[in-house]
């Protein structure tokens, strides 16, 4: 079972040559033990040691990359069951599936390309397009070519026979598509194709034992970049499979299940596309790494992508909004000018409340290391000196008729000092709670 860093160290050459990219053998051993490095990185390790280290030296869950270039995505490499234990690492990829015989292929691909949103300085986008064969190799190949020519997104190729898959791979193997899938009936041929074209491969079977048997077979053939599909029939089965797979990989170091999971929430939702999105949320929270949807329309993608951004945020490093002046609802020279901190949640809540007040306003976001108002004030990051510098540098003095800046009610105590720092400005104490901003704005206007 799992070896400690020191156990591993004993099996290494102990030359501290640094060829693995890590200065000492001990440090390398520690990384191996934590799953942060791979034994292959050491060019000098003996065959005996390799065998001895075996599964223990592998990261507990494989990271798998699909696609090439800027649009490629990586999933897996996860190290915890709960985000508060450390963080979730690689955001689930969300994409859309289109059938090779669909009449609206172009529309679906265009929707996938268009599903691209900017939020807190991050781009949230549809991650891939999956093309599902309708059963004939030429038709599949033609559809795959059509999709490939219309998008630079990574591709997932879905077919039941190796003949269909081979035809499609001839066209797009250089884009490193994800092959879906090796099953009990076609495993040898699909594994051979994945090897020949160096593409990641999904193994698909009902239930975890059957899946593990297939991943072992693929691993024995030398494949590493595997993804698993447990074919759950219900939402309950999907949850059980995903929880067991993640626990088996991380806690039992069971290598045969140490791969990312692909899910098809549409297979369990009976054609109800809103229910499909609801299930997709469950899949994402509970360990689905690649989630294949039947639509890439914005109403489906946006809630899932934003939820993903939240859940995959490192709990130790809160998201930060860009420090600048935000114009909300066409503000003019008489509009209110608020300032607050750059904690993303503070920004979202304050801007959302200003919007719901339906009065144009300026919102100044002051760099404060992602802390909320009171914490930032206590930590010296949202203090008169900093706020004054921000206001002076913002150019707002030229934009407003009355130089008036509104600070959060939670830091009412700094209003005097800020007034002294800000020559020619009037400092107004705003509401304590953001929810009171609409009423505050209304009152201020009257």
């Amino acid at each position, binding site marked *: 079972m799992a070896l400690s860093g020191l156990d591993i160290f004993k099996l290494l050459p102990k030359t501290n040559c640094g060829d693995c990219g890590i200065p000492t053998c001990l440090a390398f051993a520690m990384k191996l033990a934590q799953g942060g490095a791979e034994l292959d990185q050491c060019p000098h390790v003996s065959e005996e040691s390799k065998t001895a280290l075996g599964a223990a030296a592998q990261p507990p869950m494989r990271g798998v990359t699909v696609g090439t270039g800027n649009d490629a995505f990586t999933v897996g490499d996860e190290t915890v069951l*709960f*985000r*508060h234990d450390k963080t979730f690492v690689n955001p689930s990829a969300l994409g859309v599936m289109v059938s090779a015989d669909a009449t609206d292929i172009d529309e679906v691909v265009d929707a996938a390309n*268009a599903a691209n*949103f900017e*939020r807190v300085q991050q781009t949230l986008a549809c991650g891939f397009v999956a093309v599902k064969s309708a059963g004939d190799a030429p038709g599949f190949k033609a559809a795959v070519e059509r999709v490939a020519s219309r998008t630079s997104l990574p591709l997932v190729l879905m077919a039941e026979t190796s003949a269909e898959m081979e035809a499609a791979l001839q066209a797009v193997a250089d884009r490193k598509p994800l092959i879906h899938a090796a099953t009990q009936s076609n495993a040898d041929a699909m594994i051979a194709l994945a090897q020949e074209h160096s593409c990641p491969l999904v193994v698909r079977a009902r239930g*975890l*034992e059957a899946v*593990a048997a297939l991943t072992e077979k693929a691993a024995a053939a030398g494949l590493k970049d595997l993804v698993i599909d447990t074919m759950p029939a*219900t*939402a*309950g*089965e999907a*949850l*059980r499979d995903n*929880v*067991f797979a993640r*626990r*088996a990989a991380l*806690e*039992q170091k*069971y*290598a*045969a*299940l140490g791969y990312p999971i692909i899910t098809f929430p549409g297979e*369990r939702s009976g054609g*109800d596309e*809103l*229910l499909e*999105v*609801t*299930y997709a*949320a*469950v899949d994402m*929270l*509970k360990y689905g790494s690649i989630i294949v949807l039947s639509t890439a*329309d*914005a*109403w*489906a*993608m*946006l*809630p*899932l992508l*934003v*939820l993903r*951004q*939240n*859940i995959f*945020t490192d*709990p130790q490093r809160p998201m930060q909004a860009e420090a600048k002046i935000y114009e909300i609802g066409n503000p003019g020279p008489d509009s209110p000018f608020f300032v607050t901190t750059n904690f993303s*949640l503070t920004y*979202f*809540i304050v801007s*959302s409340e200003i*919007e*719901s007040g339906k009065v144009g306003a300026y919102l100044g976001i002051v760099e404060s290391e992602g802390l909320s108002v009171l914490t930032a004030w206590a930590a010296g990051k949202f203090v008169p000196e900093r706020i004054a510098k921000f206001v002076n540098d913002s150019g707002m003095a030229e934009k407003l008729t009355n130089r008036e800046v509104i600070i959060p009610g939670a830091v009412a105590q700094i209003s005097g000092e800020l007034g002294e720092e800000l020559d020619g400005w009037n400092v107004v104490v705003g509401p304590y709670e953001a929810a*009171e901003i609409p*009423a505050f704005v209304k009152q201020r206007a009257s």
Partner: protein
Amino acid sequence: MSFTEPVKKTNGTIREVTLGSGDGAYVVGGETALPFHTFEGTMPHKPAIAMEVFDVAPEGWPAPLVDALGDVLADPVAWARACVDTYGADMICVQLASTDPHGNDADPEQAAATVRAVVDAVDVPVVVYGTGNAEKDTEVLKKVAETVTDTVLGLGPATEDNYKAITAAALGYGHVVIMESPIDVNMAKQLNILATQMGLPADRILIDPSIGAVGYGIEYAYTVMERLRLAALNQNDSMTQMPMICNLGKEAWRAKEARVGLDEEPTWGDHAKRGVLWEATTAISLTMSGADVLVMRHPEAVRLVRTAIDELAAG
């Protein structure tokens, strides 16, 4: 190497809390495992959906909500009946928005009369939320507690600032108290400890962990709820073993992504579907981290979350 199912047994059980009375009583809680982990424990009661009814017609609601509920928005009794009869709500949550001191500032008697009328109109339990103004909520919830004594209400939010008075009122009339703490495991525990020290039985408390919607801090609530639930189950920590209630309808529909139409954000897709999904994904995420009662608003979101809950619970 062969595969052994990595089943985990827990030590703790979530308390069962009963709301309502007689045939209309509804029990929440009772889990011995993480949400829907029926492969290693039990979930005797599925998470309940309490549909919202406002005691005063809400203003400025986005089109998807008005389209779905427009006929009943001005009549709390008709609204409550529609929720139960048409949409299958497990409970009703009366939001006493009329009492907001920054708004109508309605008096406690009037609010209590509305709760009375709703309780009389439906045969499911009723949960009552004030507006979050500590002082006014105290007056209002006291009045509600003493006006409706023939059934067990859920009363909240009781916070650090007013839990004493609300607990005292609930104690006398047999109600359940919703203890609201600001997204913090220790503060949630602390309030439960203080309330039980006043003599409130631990099985008459629901935890409201304060939640945010998708995009508006849901990750904090998700994690705090997971940690509360893990402490309850794995450490058998008694003061975390209360069922959790999430007042999420208002949070989901406050999100810009749920509120604005295609005229304002032409690339965000169909407004009605997007709004419904904002509420549904918020609700199901909170369910996955331990919610036992979901306060919800849009009938279609309710349908989705109910279906997902049923399917997840079926194993």
